[in-house]
């Protein structure tokens, strides 16, 4: 790879590309020698997190890095700003947590050896794809990374090998493939109209007009399909119901968000002033909040509930579009920070919640909520983790969810867009309703004792740490928010 940036081959660039590409190598290695214990995984993964922290520090000191590389006559662009760095850090943390959890999951749950070995290369591919999505600055790299991510995600969902997993995975595959063609058609129109693929060139050359609008509509349709935003969410819940907990955690936390991230980047550059379209997206998000919340409330399996809650929580992110389109600088700044804080808080909390739910299911062997009756006496730690994660999802202080919703609320009031205030309130109430439904079952006093399997301590610990970090992100939100204020907004 030839890196030809202004800073040529600086240490930062080398470290960045190592952190981006090393996971693929580690994944392949772990595929050959599947790890048996958590500690080695943690030790090998920790340097990646530290390297990303260092990169983030460098970004906060000396500003954005960018560069290009040219394989075979193509000119591909990348950049690392505050936002991309924060998302990279989040990704590394969640990947590490998920990899360690997978080891513990394997220790308790009889998993086919081949499926377990197959998990690791897919995890490595997913890590590379997510990293590339955060730093890519042109549509070709984004396309390749998006597809790599989608295919790895489908592969991971298929690992359980049961019939319901295969059917759900097949549906996911078909959805993902068609979504990618919609995206490619949008890219074709943009390329035909402006002759550029890099984001800066597109923003400068794309004339506002019907073609840009249509291209953006096709791109948005493909991305919304992959992000499972309201009317296109049909594939998400069945896929999660049958997937392994560490896979669900990564998928709900990061994979669906990556599509949202790309959509936001493109939207801000190409059609930032399209108020009506932005309101349409906001309305879809509102419906997602309500519908996802209602379905989560009605769900009778635990993982089903958590998956529906993802559909609902993704809706909050979509509220950013109307709050960023044609509003004052103060409103836009608030909404911008709120969105990414909500994304990070939800990623941590949702991963924790999927893992906690996985722990409850693994320990009791019960998938249904009614089967968890009286579980508070036997699995207090798993249940507490579930509760702490739920604090962030509901948006209670001092969690990241609270800070994010508080900022969002301020933005909506400042902009006079009262509809979103109502949506925020309704969403919070619905979240409380479905979370407390779990606790109502769990705290039943008259339920018989379960035969509970003892889980490795690491499983509960990882979930608890993630849930607590979602709380801590709310308390220490100033540092990421300062980074976000400085850079990232195109």
């Amino acid at each position, binding site marked *: 790879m030839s890196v030809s940036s202004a800073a040529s081959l600086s240490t930062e660039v080398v470290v960045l590309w190592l952190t981006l590409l090393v996971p693929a190598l580690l994944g392949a290695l772990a595929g050959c020698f599947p790890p048996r214990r958590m500690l080695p995984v943690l030790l090998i993964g920790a340097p990646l997190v530290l390297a990303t922290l260092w990169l983030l520090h460098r970004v906060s000191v000396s500003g954005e890095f960018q560069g290009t590389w040219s394989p*075979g*006559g*193509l000119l591909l662009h990348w950049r690392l700003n505050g936002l991309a760095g924060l998302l990279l850090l989040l990704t590394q943390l969640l990947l590490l947590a998920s990899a360690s959890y997978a080891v513990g999951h394997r220790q308790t749950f009889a998993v086919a050896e081949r499926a377990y070995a197959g998990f690791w290369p897919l995890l490595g591919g997913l890590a590379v794809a997510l990293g590339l999505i955060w730093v890519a600055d042109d549509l*070709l790299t984004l*396309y*390749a990374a998006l*597809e790599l991510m989608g*295919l790895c995600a*489908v*592969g991971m969902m*298929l690992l359980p090998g049961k*019939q319901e997993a*295969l*059917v759900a*995975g*097949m*549906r996911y*595959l*078909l*959805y*993902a*493939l*068609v979504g*990618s*063609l*919609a995206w*490619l*058609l949008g*890219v*074709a*129109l943009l*390329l*035909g*109209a402006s*002759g550029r*693929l890099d984001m800066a060139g597109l923003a400068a050359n794309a004339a506002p*007009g*019907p*073609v840009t609008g*249509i*291209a953006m*509509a*096709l791109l948005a*349709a493909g991305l919304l399909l992959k992000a499972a935003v309201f*009317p*296109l*969410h*049909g*594939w998400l819940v069945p896929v999660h119901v049958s997937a392994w907990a560490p896979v669900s955690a990564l998928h709900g936390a990061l994979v669906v968000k990556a599509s949202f991230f790309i959509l936001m980047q493109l939207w801000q550059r190409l059609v930032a002033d399209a108020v009506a379209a932005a309101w349409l997206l906001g309305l879809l998000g509102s419906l997602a909040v309500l519908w996802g919340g209602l379905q989560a409330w009605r769900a009778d399996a635990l993982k089903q509930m958590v998956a529906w809650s993802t559909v609902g929580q993704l809706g909050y992110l979509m509220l950013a579009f109307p709050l960023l389109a044609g509003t004052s600088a103060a409103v836009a700044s608030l909404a911008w920070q709120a969105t990414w804080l909500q994304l990070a808080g939800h990623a941590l909390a949702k991963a924790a919640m999927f893992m906690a739910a996985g722990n409850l299911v693994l320990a009791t062997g019960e998938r249904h909520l009614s089967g968890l009756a009286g579980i508070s006496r036997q699995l207090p730690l798993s249940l507490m983790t579930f509760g702490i994660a739920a604090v962030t999802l509901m948006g209670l202080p001092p969690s990241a969810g609270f800070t994010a919703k508080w900022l969002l609320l301020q933005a909506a009031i400042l902009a006079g867009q009262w509809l979103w205030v109502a949506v925020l309130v309704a969403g919070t109430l619905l979240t409380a309703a479905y979370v407390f439904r779990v606790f109502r079952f769990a705290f039943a006093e008259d339920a018989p004792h379960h035969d509970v399997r003892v889980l490795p301590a690491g499983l509960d610990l990882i979930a608890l740490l993630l849930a607590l970090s979602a709380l801590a992100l709310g308390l220490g939100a100033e540092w990421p928010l300062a980074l976000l204020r400085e850079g990232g907004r195109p």
Partner: protein
Amino acid sequence: MSLLGELVAAGLLVILATACLFDRHLFRACLAFLAFALLMALAWWRLEAPWLALAEIVLGALLTGMALFHALGRLGEGCRLPPRDHQARPRHQSPVRWLAALVWLALAGLAVWELSGNSPLVASGEVSRRPLLASGLAIMALGLWAFAHHLHLLRRLLAFNVLGSGVFLLLAGLAGPVVEVQGLILVGLVVALVGSVLGAALLGRLYALDGRVTLGADRDAAP
């Protein structure tokens, strides 16, 4: 290459796509797809993109074809799927899909119309790109119809591949055979291949598990 030759090639592509998507006999449909992919390679060759033509032959025709024939049970061991598709989609399931497919097609058609009217890029290209655009749109329409209409998973995979080829043709027709287009199409070909292999393997597994060749009782929003 004369305009007439371009027209004939584009017409042949559309005819083969039609044969591939309308034939209920799965083996014949797969053969038609193979011929379609080879003709696509010829189209890339004539656009002076020999590497793309090679990739299309290897990835699009050879490997995808092998995956499809393997799923059919004509290649290697494996369950042999029934040779014909007997599924018919109930009428009441269709409207939303039809609407989505029509909106997609209308948007694409409108954008191509706008672009071929006043874009400097298309204007500078020869007239011979017009047949490419027209055949791309037609093939995309066929692929969309088939993807929305068929239930049999193998036929949906074929429809996806044809739809993808239609998008590639549009891409090449809109922006010319520049290096960015070749890169995008190459990635697209790899993705289509991996998707087809994965889909065909899944179909084989599902058929072996409980004899199904469709996604089955879709409760609500199926793709």
